[in-house]
């Protein structure tokens, strides 16, 4: 059917779980926060996969667990063909050259005691890449690539604005020439006009260096702009995954529909009728039985309460975890 050559899968996540134990002095049974609750997906080389969701959905934890900044409770992460969970500490450190992270808070992601030049250079020092002179050249080169002046090399982080700090963080991530970059809410803390600059930069760099991005954010318009495919998370699981345009024009999962309709559109002529969900997002300490969304879902049935829906492909590249998929192709739920 499609004559596209399938690009390589650079990352495969299978059944990933991350539970945090919570010690409550009032209870004897050990409780867990089910931050990531059986997540599977994959990334193709060179694409941007956007991960959206609200509080408690686990998207940040997922990003960190993939990089093994948190040890997974279960499941596997296969990166460039290697199972990251099986690597020794030494091998993992080496693997870290190829996968980097960009963080949300530009104010706490840079060590205030070091100059920018040293901060960017750090990875090269850790992995013993290049001579001192070569390292310096590379740092200056990257400063230019992210749009900063060479004299930034000698300055301290507190001398820069939020947007500039994010550029420094990006330069720091790029210096080891990674293949994959996990971007954890990289523009959420920035003003709209600065956000545009940083997003443009990320896109340019992706093209130039053939990077793969896992872009985690809560702002759907931003995710839509930068992503090729989008995954929607709810309470530790992926509810729906699809190519960007398809997800936005034909969302299947009731949660996705509610989420998209709740985003206020900056156009007063468009009258929105947001789907008003009942109640609030449950705590990841007590995820509901069966489908995590069933207590708030307008279409919930008995089955939804009992059985956890699996991600099923409902169209090419479009997957949804909802029992309503069984009713396809006859009728899709109204939007």
């Amino acid at each position: 059917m499609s004559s596209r050559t399938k690009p390589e899968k650079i990352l495969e996540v299978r059944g990933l779980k991350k539970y945090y134990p919570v010690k409550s002095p009032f209870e004897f049974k050990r409780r867990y926060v089910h931050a990531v609750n059986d997540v599977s997906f994959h990334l193709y080389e060179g694409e941007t996969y956007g991960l959206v969701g609200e509080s408690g959905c686990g998207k940040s934890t997922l990003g960190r667990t993939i990089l093994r900044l948190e040890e997974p409770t279960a499941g596997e992460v296969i990166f460039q063909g290697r199972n990251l969970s099986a690597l020794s500490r030494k091998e993992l450190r080496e693997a870290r050259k190829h996968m980097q992270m960009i963080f949300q808070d530009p104010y706490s992601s840079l060590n205030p005691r070091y100059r920018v030049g040293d901060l960017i250079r750090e990875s090269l020092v850790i992995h013993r890449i290049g001579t001192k002179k070569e390292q310096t050249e590379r740092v200056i080169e990257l400063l230019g690539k992210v749009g900063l002046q060479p004299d930034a090399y000698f300055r301290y982080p507190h001398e820069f604005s939020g947007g500039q700090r994010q550029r420094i963080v990006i330069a720091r991530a790029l210096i080891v020439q990674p293949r994959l970059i996990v971007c954890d809410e990289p523009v959420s803390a920035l003003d709209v006009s600065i956000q545009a600059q940083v997003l443009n930069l990320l896109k340019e760099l992706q093209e130039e260096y053939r990077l793969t991005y896992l872009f985690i954010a809560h702002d759907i318009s931003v995710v839509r702009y930068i992503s090729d495919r989008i995954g929607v998370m709810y309470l530790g699981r992926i509810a729906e995954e699809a190519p960007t345009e398809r997800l936005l024009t034909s969302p299947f999962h009731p949660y996705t529909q509610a989420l998209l309709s709740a985003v206020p559109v900056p156009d007063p002529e468009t009258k929105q009728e947001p789907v008003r969900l009942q109640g609030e997002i449950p705590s990841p300490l007590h995820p509901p039985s069966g489908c995590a969304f069933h207590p708030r879902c307008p279409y919930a049935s008995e089955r939804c309460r009992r059985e956890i829906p699996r991600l099923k492909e409902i169209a090419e590249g479009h997957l949804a975890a909802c029992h309503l998929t069984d009713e396809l192709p006859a009728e899709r739920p109204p939007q």
Partner: protein
Amino acid sequence: MGSHLLEIQDLRTRFRTERGTVTAVDGVSFHLDRGEVLAVVGESGCGKSVTAHSILRLYEERGEARYEGRVLFEGRNLLELSESEMRAIRGNRISMIFQDPTSSLNPVYTIGDQLMEPLRLHQKMSKKEAHDKAVELLKLTGIPSPEKRIREYPHQLSGGMRQRVMISMALACLPDVLIADEPTTALDVTVQSQILALMDELRNRTNMGILLITHDLGIVAQHCHRVVVMYLGEVVEEAEVRRLFRRPLHPYTRGLMKSLPQMHTDRSARLHVIRGSVPSLHEVPGGCRFAPRCPHADEQCANARPELADAENGHKVRCWHYDKILQAEETAHVIANET
């Protein structure tokens, strides 16, 4: 038109800092009427939050802050009232809700205690009366099982619930004006939608005026009647929401809207960028404050500060060349569409 519910005239708020005096709000004027929602929009450092805080004189006057100008409410200038007169207004006639519900609620008191405080203070209710009213208020803002919740502590509630409690507290005495400073920024988008709907409903019921501070143009478009756009301590544009979105006049507003990724933005194109960044309040440019970043600025813009002038039908803008810029951009747009 009759007098406005709240009218700010030429407000200036100065702060004394280590590095000299900073004028965070420099000659801001606008008004709010009953039953309407006025949005104050801008990015960091524009002074929108400071304006809101200044209306209620929340900054410590003996130490850091100085106010100038007039804040007219019910025929009185709030800036000239005594501290005790102000206290009678705060939480009672003019209420405020803040961005972060977590730190706005005292963790050591129950929700009930905090809710009952303004009631007992301003309306001199007995404990029982206040308790019943509090339960009623919680119900009003959509909190389930309010009789149970009223005895709970802030940390036992979610962010959305806490914001509802804040709204309850703010509305306890049926104020005429509600100032909401980024009330939903810290909340999830589905919760945000609930809270904004709640505010709309309450406004319809009580006919209060809402001053909504936000940076989210989507919220402005969907929930507000009029907008004031601020930049570096000044109002640069003011209009009815529909007019502003249909034809923004100020280059800053235009730039801002163009740099927003929206649902119909071309994903393969670069986002529009307003070049440069917001200068520090210690180094305010002479002339038009936006000139250094404006693609259309000229000599006049660099040297002379434009006034906030009426462009058409109540749509005000602070720019020397807005009409020429508008013409040029629209012509270019037409040409682009023709080719």
